[in-house]
């Protein structure tokens, strides 16, 4: 079982070795960092408290988190446990007390007592709680963490309770909705909901037929019927009449407990079915042994695409068939199908339910489809490819369980059940539309399919039974009416239950760490108490943890209760799922619309599933989410902006409503519902954003190799101001680091689920680049700016620019070669504002976008409605003029920042062009005086430009260390002059002697025989022999397991070899 993890684990591409070297603190076991595993002292402390907490039915002040953690983070960890109730009234009362105690945020986590994960089992209070499903249980002690002071959040999460109370909209509608939304996903970027509907309409018809049964029950409006139909398919042994009854009134909560959605199952087990590296032959071999309907996703070497290989029944002739997966810019779809999905998981999940272009629906392997907990799934997933040959993948001992019928069309009660599940990732209950309607704030638990409005409207017209939740409780604690401006971050961890992820969240410097369940577990007695070095060990540790969890939870077979059990419970990936629930609330409901799209949350859940978010960051993210592509794009680097998203949420729903109603003729009532439903779209988060966010989180998690790299690099840079000899050097190193880390990420398995499953291939680099900006440039921005300024102050270019700016400003446009209309004062002010906004951005791309806006504005002024097109002959002088008028010294550093850090692949585009022009304009200004004299730029400037371009084009295409292998950075040390560095082109076979020659030339050394090349490593100097090969030495250093800081230094031989170089006072300084 370990096998899977290890190899997948932290592969450190060779290219990264260099990185490590570059870092003074390389990722290495750090006792302080990872005490006793993941949790850290706090977590452990919390853990200790856990048993007591677990036995409590309600959160009490004691088990509320005390640390002043940022809300979002906390919310994401929240576990909400909703006590099953028999009567709404009693529920209210209970809830009220919950609220009173300040336990505000919860995750809807349904835990039946059967659930192996429940801590209750091991906790003292267990017996009592077990007595009835109705007894409210605190499932996880940790859930207490939850409670937050943030009213908004709490409202939101509170509202989450509501939906669950009602048995609800049909599985069919859920399923369709999910299909619908999935499809929508692809379109939302394009803003065409219209198309979406058209596309899906036919599919829906099909589904509808397939789900006749559901429909019937729905149309009868019999909640009971529905509930029962669901119950019917429950796993045997779990059904309790009691629960069933409760469901009717309550939520069907128990009937669904322990059920995992298909999507969830897929997410957990992707190491099994998502085998991108598998060849066709291997895939065929595996599938041959499987029953029809079983599938694999792998990459076809023939087609150079991902394909879905499906095992066919004998009647089909061929044993299996491959369906190509089409990846467009934003979506995944099966070749030939009109339905697109945001990611691979949704695609597969959909095809587990509806066949669409397939001959029949996909089937999950028996073990996966019957797994009762995330822990079990995790356990299966650990096997990876071995799953297929393992006993785990055996046929059901008995005839297929009721919920997994083998009916060829794949439609049946079973699929119905799964439809429900797909939304309620963690056994969320469905409810009637009317209830949905009332519980506007919570939206999240399920989708309403607008196309099923006939069904819904019945409910509606029957008067809304407002779930008690809506109205303030007796306690008055609840404030459902105030729409939480934004939801708690989606706690998607659940999806990622994989230990790795959990780990991730934990231990970083991030505050939320402490609360994480997993961590807690880790800290528990039996688990690994050792300090865990970043990559491998940790992984193993977490694996153990997961394994332990799985064991405990799956069988309940462990006799020993107590901490161990608890550990299992807490540690089980299942622990995570509840976190997902807050995510549901995430989407900010349009404040005004009372009836919030119920689906909204559901959608959210769906869409969030695939990412794990736990950090405070997620909040911010969610806020920006409703902006949709258009707004979000421009803002994302400013996404810290507060509060704007709320208003914006409004827009999309309205828009989409209009569109939709035009395509369907629907009654008013329906329309209003549609409007609500449309809110769902505002919650779409592009997979891209989710991925970026996910990576950003990972980067803060020092438990991951990636996190270590990033964190160490960031802190290294911040703490070592002297490590760079020039601004260019610094920016270049950062760029190089980003490129290499990107490379690492795309190869490593630290991203779970793999990026390929969420992002179409041609977009991966774009997404990674964005993520790099967020996790590297964002934290470094301030530092970099300060450093740039320092460098420019130091080298005098700041002053030079300042003086020349003054000169240039005094010239009239004609003197600058301007023969086109120029911007007036007002325009210049506008431009200045844009430049100032630019300064706030950390992303070079965003900065470039603003630069483009400035240029566009200049063009507009120049053209002045004349219709004349101005080329560079006219534009460049005007740009120079404008930049001078703006009189912003900071522009210099801005431009430099962009030029060095912009994604190399953008350098040839429009952004690159205007960046070049802006740089040129600034150079002209800087050299204005000189130009006056010589009418030419100094050759020095030309050299700089040339070098810049060379640099930037060098690493343009192949961002790997190989690019840099032909370069050697050599520092030149001279008396009094400090150190200057140059990067030389040094091929591997070039000897030290040759390098010395090059150095003599480059550094303009008059007496080369006095100098030699030294290697400074481990605080010692070694003079390199003439016949050695510096590149080989460098390679050797890079390949050492321990990172070394080393420098090649060209300096006087006479110098004290131990680093005192500034002895020869009379040495005249050679220029650098």
């Amino acid at each position, binding site marked *: 079982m370990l096998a899977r993890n290890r190899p997948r684990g932290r592969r450190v591409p060779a290219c990264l070795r260099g990185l490590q070297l570059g870092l003074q603190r390389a990722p290495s076991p750090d006792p302080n960092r990872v005490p006793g595993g993941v949790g850290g002292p706090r977590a452990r402390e919390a853990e200790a408290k856990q048993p007591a907490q677990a036995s409590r039915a309600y959160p009490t002040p004691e088990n509320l988190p005390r640390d002043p953690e940022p809300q979002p983070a906390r919310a994401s960890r929240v576990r909400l446990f909703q006590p099953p109730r028999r009567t709404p009234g009693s529920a209210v009362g209970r809830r009220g007390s919950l609220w009173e105690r300040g336990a505000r945020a919860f995750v809807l986590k349904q835990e039946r007592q059967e659930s192996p994960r429940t801590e209750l089992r091991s906790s003292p209070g267990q017996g009592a709680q077990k007595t009835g499903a109705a007894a409210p249980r605190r499932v996880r002690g940790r859930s207490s963490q939850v409670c937050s002071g943030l009213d908004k959040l709490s409202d939101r999460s509170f509202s989450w309770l509501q939906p669950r109370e009602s048995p609800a909209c049909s599985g069919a509608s859920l399923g369709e909705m999910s299909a619908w939304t999935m499809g929508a996903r692809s379109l939302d970027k394009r803003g065409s909901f219209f198309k979406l509907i058209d596309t899906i309409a036919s599919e829906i018809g099909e589904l509808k037929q397939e789900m006749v049964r559901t429909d019937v029950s729905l149309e009868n409006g019999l909640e009971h019927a529905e509930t029962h139909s669901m119950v019917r398919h429950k796993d045997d042994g779990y059904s309790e009449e009691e629960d069933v009854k409760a469901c009717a009134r309550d939520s069907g909560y128990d009937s669904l407990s322990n059920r995992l959605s298909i999507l969830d199952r897929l997410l957990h087990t992707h190491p099994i079915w998502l085998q991108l590296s598998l060849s066709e032959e291997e895939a065929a071999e595996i599938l041959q042994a499987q029953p029809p309907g079983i599938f694999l996703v792998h990459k076809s070497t023939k087609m150079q695409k991902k394909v879905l290989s499906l095992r066919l029944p004998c009647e089909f002739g061929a044993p299996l068939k491959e369906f190509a997966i089409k990846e467009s810019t934003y979506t995944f779809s099966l070749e030939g199908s009109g339905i697109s999905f945001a990611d691979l998981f949704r695609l597969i999940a959909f095809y587990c339910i509806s066949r669409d272009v397939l001959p029949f629906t996909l089937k999950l392997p028996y073990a996966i489809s019957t797994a009762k907990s995330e822990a079990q799934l995790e356990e299966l997933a650990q096997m990876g490819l071995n799953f297929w040959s393992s006993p785990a993948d055996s046929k059901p001992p008995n005839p297929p369980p009721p919920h997994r019928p083998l009916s060829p069309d794949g439609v049946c009660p079973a699929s119905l059940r799964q439809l429900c599940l797909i939304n309620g990732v963690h056994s969320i209950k469905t409810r009637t539309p009317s209830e949905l309607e009332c519980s506007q704030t919570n939206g999240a638990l399920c989708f309403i399919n607008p196309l099923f409005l006939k069904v819904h409207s019945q409910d509606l017209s029957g008067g809304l039974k407002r779930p008690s939740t809506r109205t303030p409780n007796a306690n008055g604690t609840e404030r459902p009416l105030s729409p939480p401006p934004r939801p708690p971050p989606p706690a998607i961890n659940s999806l990622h239950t994989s230990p790795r992820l959990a780990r991730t969240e934990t231990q970083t410097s991030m505050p939320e760490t402490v609360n994480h369940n997993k961590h807690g577990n880790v800290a528990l007695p039996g688990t690994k108490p050792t300090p865990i070095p970043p990559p491998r060990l940790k992984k193993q540790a977490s694996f153990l943890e997961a394994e332990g969890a799985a064991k405990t939870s799956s069988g309940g077979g462990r006799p020993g209760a107590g901490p161990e059990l608890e550990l299992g419970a807490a540690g089980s990936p299942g622990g995570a799922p509840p976190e997902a629930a807050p995510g549901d609330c995430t989407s900010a409901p349009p404040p005004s619309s009372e009836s919030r799209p119920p689906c909204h949350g559901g959608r959210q859940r769906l869409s969030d599933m695939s990412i794990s978010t736990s950090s405070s960051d997620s909040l911010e993210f969610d806020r920006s989410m409703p902006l949709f592509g258009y707004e979000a794009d*421009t803002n994302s680097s400013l996404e810290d902006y507060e509060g704007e998203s709320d208003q914006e949420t409004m827009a999309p729903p309205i828009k989409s409503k209009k569109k939709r109603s035009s395509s369907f003729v629907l009654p008013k009532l329906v329309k209003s519902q549609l409007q609500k439903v449309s809110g769902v779209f505002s919650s779409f988060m592009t997979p891209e954003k989710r991925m970026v966010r996910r990576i950003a989180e990972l980067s803060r998690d020092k438990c991951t190799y990636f996190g270590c790299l990033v964190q160490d690099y960031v802190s290294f840079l911040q703490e070592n101001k002297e490590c760079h000899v020039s601004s260019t050097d610094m920016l270049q190193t950062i760029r190089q680091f980003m490129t290499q880390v990107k490379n690492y990420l795309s190869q490593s398995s630290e991203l779970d689920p793999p990026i390929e499953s969420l992002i179409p291939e041609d977009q991966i680099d774009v997404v990674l680049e964005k993520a790099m900006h967020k996790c590297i440039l964002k934290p470094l921005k301030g530092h970099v700016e300060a450093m740039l300024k320092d460098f420019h102050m130091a080298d005098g270019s700041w002053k030079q620019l300042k003086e020349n700016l003054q000169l240039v400003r005094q010239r009239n446009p004609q003197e600058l070669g301007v023969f086109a209309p120029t911007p007036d004062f007002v325009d210049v002010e506008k431009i200045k504002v844009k430049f100032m906004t630019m300064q706030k951005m950390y992303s070079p791309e965003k900065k470039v976008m603003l630069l483009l806006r400035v240029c566009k504005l200049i063009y507009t002024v120049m053209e002045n409605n004349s219709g004349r097109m*101005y080329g560079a002959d006219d534009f460049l002088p005007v740009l120079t003029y404008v930049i001078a008028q703006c009189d912003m010294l900071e522009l210099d550093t801005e431009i430099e920042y962009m030029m060095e850090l912009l994604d190399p692949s953008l350098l040839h585009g429009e952004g690159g062009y205007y960046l070049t022009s802006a740089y040129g304009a600034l150079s002209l200004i800087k050299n204005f005086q000189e130009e006056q004299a010589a009418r030419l730029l100094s050759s020095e400037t030309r050299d700089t430009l040339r070098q810049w371009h060379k640099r930037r084009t060098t690493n343009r295409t192949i961002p790997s260390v190989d690019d840099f292998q032909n370069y050697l950075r050599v520092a030149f040390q001279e008396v009094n002059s400090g150190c200057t560095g140059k990067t030389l082109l040094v091929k591997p076979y070039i000897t030290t002697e040759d390098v010395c020659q090059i150095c003599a030339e480059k550094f303009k050394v008059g007496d080369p025989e006095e100098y030699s090349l030294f290697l400074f490593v481990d605080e010692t100097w070694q003079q390199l022999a003439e016949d050695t090969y510096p590149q080989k030495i460098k390679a050797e250093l890079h390949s050492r397991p321990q990172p070394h800081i080393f420098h090649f230094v060209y300096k006087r031989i006479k110098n004290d070899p131990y680093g005192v170089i500034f002895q020869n006072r009379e040495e005249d300084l050679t220029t650098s």
Partner: protein
Amino acid sequence: MMAIRELKVCLLGDTGVGKSSIVCRFVQDHFDHNISPTIGASFMTKTVPCGNELHKFLIWDTAGQERFHSLAPMYYRGSAAAVIVYDITKQDSFYTLKKWVKELKEHGPENIVMAIAGNKCDLSDIREVPLKDAKEYAESIGAIVVETSAKNAINIEELFQGIRPVVLTVCQLPGNSLISTSAASQLMALPAHLSAAVRPPAQQI
């Protein structure tokens, strides 16, 4: 989705010879409304289908004035091709052209494809540069040569179509990093990049 190859083309030549007119003509003929226009005429793109590929010309205009001469390297670096424009009615512009050719040979990218465009051929009655001179010169440096008229849309399309195959051949040469096959996948990502990151502002403004 068709693969997109990007060809960076740099425009050089004296000021006033009609560099930007040539590009405007090239880009605006058969104007495709689906392609979001660039923000100005200094940088323009045009995508031309070719077999099962799309070739996207990224045309970098440069300022021809002497004072901006020193900035040119930034513009022509990384170019797959350079179109050097002179004005057939101005002998001086032909001299400047020769200077550019020389500079490109010395400092330009290796294997850069050079195309010489004698613009304003509609004004051949006041011609100062005989076509023969241009042809001889072009031959001596292995460049494409064509006389164009941006005004009358003469030979504009031909000029760029002429560059394409040469560039592609050159690109096949090993060691040419301009548009190598390995870069192709990356280039494919570029349009999306552009549309996501660069284009929107252009449209919004």
